[in-house]
């Protein structure tokens, strides 16, 4: 058995399909997306006694997507109420909008220039050196999107989506409220 293990290791043939296959049931309303153009420049170099041992330069661009919406799994409540005009309607209470994900779109990568100088593989840019830069840019894009009101836009569009759904179901004046907003308190019990 040990011999077979040894020989299989030295044979170097790896037979793997997906290492990790996870299924998750989610329920998210994706209602707003901001797309950024990221132009990045990276230079990495080293020298020894004045002699350049590495000179790597990269200029590339790609798109970063910031998507916001409402996660229905965080709580959605629906109750029948009477509005100010004493009309029967429904009120839907949702969790506030949040950033669902920030993604660097690999399909949009455009590499303008790449210079790789160095001994053997030392001059080549590595994947993690590139994604290090991406991580910072994604954080900046998310911050900018929030400052520009992506969450408010996501909530407005979620309202439109649900209102249209409920309007066609016979409740054209349905109310959509988001939890933890001080001016719209959470509904604790269904009204008759």
């Amino acid at each position, binding site marked *: 058995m040990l011999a077979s293990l040894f020989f299989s290791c030295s044979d*170097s043939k*790896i*037979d*793997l*399909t*997906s*290492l*990790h*296959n*996870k*299924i*998750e049931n*989610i329920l*998210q*309303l*994706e*209602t*707003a*997306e*901001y*797309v*950024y*153009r*990221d*132009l*990045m*420049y*990276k*230079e990495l*170099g*080293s020298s020894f006694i004045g002699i350049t041992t590495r000179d790597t330069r*990269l200029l590339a661009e790609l798109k*970063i997507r910031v*998507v916001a*919406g409402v996660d229905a799994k965080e709580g959605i409540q*629906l109750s029948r109420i009477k509005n100010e005009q004493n009309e029967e309607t429904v009120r*839907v209470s949702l969790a506030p909008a949040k950033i669902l*994900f920030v993604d660097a779109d*690999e*399909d949009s*990568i455009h*590499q303008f220039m*790449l210079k790789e100088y160095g001994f053997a593989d030392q001059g*080549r840019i590595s*994947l*993690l*050196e*590139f*994604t290090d830069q*991406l*991580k*910072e840019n994604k954080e*900046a894009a998310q911050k900018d999107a929030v400052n520009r009101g992506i969450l408010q*836009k996501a909530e407005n569009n979620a309202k439109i*989506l649900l209102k*249209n*759904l409920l309007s*066609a*179901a*016979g409740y054209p004046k349905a109310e959509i409220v988001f939890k933890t907003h001080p001016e719209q308190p959470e509904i604790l019990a269904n009204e008759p």
Partner: protein
Amino acid sequence: MSPKSQDQDKNPRPGDPDGTSSPKPKTRKTSFRKMALLIKLWPVYAIILAVLLVCLLFLPIFGKPLISFQRNWEISSSDLSLEEIKDLYRINSSEYIYKVIFPYDFFDPGISELGILKKVQANLGKDPKKFLSPEEQEYLQTWNLAKKYRLNIKAPDYHFLVATVIIRAGFSFEDINKITLNPENPENKPLSLEIPPAKILDIRVEDPIRNEYPFPDVPLSPEGWKEIAALMKARAQRLSLQDGILEEAEENARDFLSSLLKSSGFSSVEFKNIASEDFTQK
């Protein structure tokens, strides 16, 4: 005659034919002595030189050593600009996550490189799709990608990538006007809901982050990462469809909408896919 001159006459110095006296050449002896003294003091000089070198090379003076043999630098800059704002009306109701390994996930163990090469040689100039199976095409594409971007997938380097691919499926409600009420029995308020078919809404590859990526780094340009990520996405999408992501998405969405609408007073909710048969939930 002076006594000196008398002595000089009796004992004339060599090279002194007329016996007159001249000063002895003491300069050479003195310089030798000085040199010997300097040589004896070599440990002192060595210590002084070593101290100077340590001060220059290792001790931080005003922030960094005055002289350094090794120098490293890194310049990173980026420019972010908002390009587009999109309004979305989507319900994501299923998410599948896959770990894909390049290149080993794409090398079917039942296929040999030699077999593929023989087929290619026998069909030079022809479209590989016509004489290679899908697995063989994937094998060849992977091999060519690894060669193109100088990823040594054999000994001794064994370059490989592990990436997480996330696939989301659900419904896009850009056109949500297709909702109708049952006109025959309005008092019981059954609701007929026509929904679009589930589809894959998003496929994305998580970028590996240095502190969280547990595998060796790989020399790979952004262009290479783009092509390899596309291959990984295609594979994950194929797997997710085989695993039933669309059916799962439809079921989850029906459950969600059904419970949402029932709690507002509807006794039953009927779902009708635009391109498929009716489903009724009570």
